[in-house]
């Protein structure tokens, strides 16, 4: 049986399958449906320095092969996480990565340094691409200079594996990836959601309270795959692929395009046990094609 072991900077995972921030709660929500300790890692939801209420309902709209969300980083803040959530997730037998967001560089630094002290958290994912908050979030992720600035600042206070989650709402995602790399990121993960919108024709009103929201799901997979492929060729740090992954075949496509690992997001809502099916499917694929390690398919696209 092929070796699924995956390494992202200093982060060692039993396999390349992670669950994406905001789609898997703190992991415990899914424990009834699958053995979450089988995951490479769980990336828990966007955490900020102070508690956030998030956006008003409605926050979600179904779209063709996808969904829009405008949750807006609802969370209880990093202190609550450290005191109440960390002790619980720490016992789940599953590697936990925290997605970190903020409205200013200081916010990001404050949250990152609080998490740096937690022995059981081997990595953070810096979310500079959330399209659903008024300040910060995506604003940091669409200019190379601000990507560099926020990643450099966090790098100073966060000493473990630093993953930077990139926005697809840019002309050239490789510019952002290179900025993150040169600021000291250990890896980039992409894509966050595409900024989208939905309208109810009959009532002439937007379907989201925030008018626009983030598009995810299989609809965006072709865009995500392209960006992963472009980024893989542009940087030396590992690339983590995200965007509409629903099956082992989808995950393998991302790895062939250059992803060292992948995150499953929206698909968790459709099938809460999809991620273990993806792990098993990758393993079967590797065996069927005679690979001894999952690393052999990273960037193995023939073109």
């Amino acid at each position: 049986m092929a070796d699924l072991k995956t390494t992202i900077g200093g982060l060692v995972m039993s396999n390349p399958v992670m669950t994406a921030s905001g789609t898997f709660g703190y992991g415990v929500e899914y424990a009834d449906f699958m053995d979450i300790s089988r995951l490479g890692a769980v990336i828990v939801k966007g955490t900020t320095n102070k508690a956030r209420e998030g956006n008003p309902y409605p926050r979600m709209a179904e779209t063709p092969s996808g969904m829009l969300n405008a949750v807006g980083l609802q969370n209880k803040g990093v202190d609550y996480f450290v005191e109440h959530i960390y002790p619980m997730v720490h016992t789940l037998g599953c590697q936990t990565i925290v997605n970190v967001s903020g409205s200013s560089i200081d916010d990001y630094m404050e949250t990152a340094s609080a998490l740096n002290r937690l022995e059981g958290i081997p990595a953070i994912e810096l979310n500079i691409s959330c399209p659903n908050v008024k300040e910060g979030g995506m604003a940091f992720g669409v200019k190379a200079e601000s990507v560099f600035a926020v990643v450099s600042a966090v790098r100073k206070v966060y000493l473990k594996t630093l993953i930077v989650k990139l926005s697809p709402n840019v002309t050239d995602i490789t510019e952002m990836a290179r900025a993150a790399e040169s600021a000291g990121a250990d890896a980039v993960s992409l894509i966050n959601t595409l900024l989208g919108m939905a309208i109810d024709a009959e009532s002439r009103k937007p379907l989201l309270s925030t008018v626009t929201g983030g598009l995810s799901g299989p609809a965006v997979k072709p865009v995500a795959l392209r960006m992963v492929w472009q980024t893989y060729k542009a940087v030396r740090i590992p690339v983590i692929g995200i965007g509409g992954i629903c099956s082992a075949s989808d995950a393998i496509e991302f790895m062939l395009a250059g992803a060292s690992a992948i995150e499953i997001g929206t698909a968790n809502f459709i099938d809460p046990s999809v991620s273990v099916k993806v792990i098993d499917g990758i393993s079967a694929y590797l065996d069927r094609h005679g690979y001894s390690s999952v690393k052999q398919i990273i960037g193995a696209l023939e073109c």
Partner: protein
Amino acid sequence: MKKYQFDLIVDSCRNVSVDTFLLKLTCPEGLPEVNPGQFAEFMVEGSAKTFLRRPISIHDTDMVRNTVSFLIRKVGAGTEQLSKLKPGDSVNVLLPLGNGFDCTSLRSRYPLLAGGGVGVAPLYLLGKYFASHGISPTFLFGGRTVSNLLRLEDFEKLGKVYATTDDGSFGERGVVTDHHVLQNENFDVIYACGPTPMLKAVAGYALRNGVACQVSLEHMMACGIGACLCCVEKTRKGNLCVCKDGPVFSIEELLWQI
């Protein structure tokens, strides 16, 4: 309560009104305990227009035969697709989800179960709970017209049923809160499910009359298990997930302007 992902088998699927059907499913693995007011998330296959699961109230259970029933109104592509299920078909379902109605700590002796349209669905299992505990529930149902009043004869086996219709085609003309039974009787708890305006009217009545009141909300959902934070309702405790912290709330928890 532990949640399950099951492939349930269609036992029957039959129309009960022009736009509503009753879907009865068998659980080969054995049906887990369900609280009245809990719901299930249905995978909808075979429709290009549906991407997410569809949350649907649990209408009835039969723990002996391991069947669970759903009373479903066709409101869009997802429910339309479910209405086409045939005996023997398989459907992937997550259940039981959410917290149901509080039937125990409220110690109701004289409950009113108020339903609007297909909102009567979860009140059947709730009514059965009361009936099986020696309490005869009173039902008060509202609809636009007589054909919106569903399964009246079955509810009547559990307790007294009153009704209103907007057009007066059955019961009293008006909305549920206009019904004379609210003037004549002193219910100790009101359990309600239906469209938001109806719930707010019922909640207003309950508040004014000092009656405990639980309402079941029907927000749009994605995950159904508290992970995506899409189906929130603003409450005294902040934004809570209707799927996980509800769908049933006591009206004092809510911030409704009533």
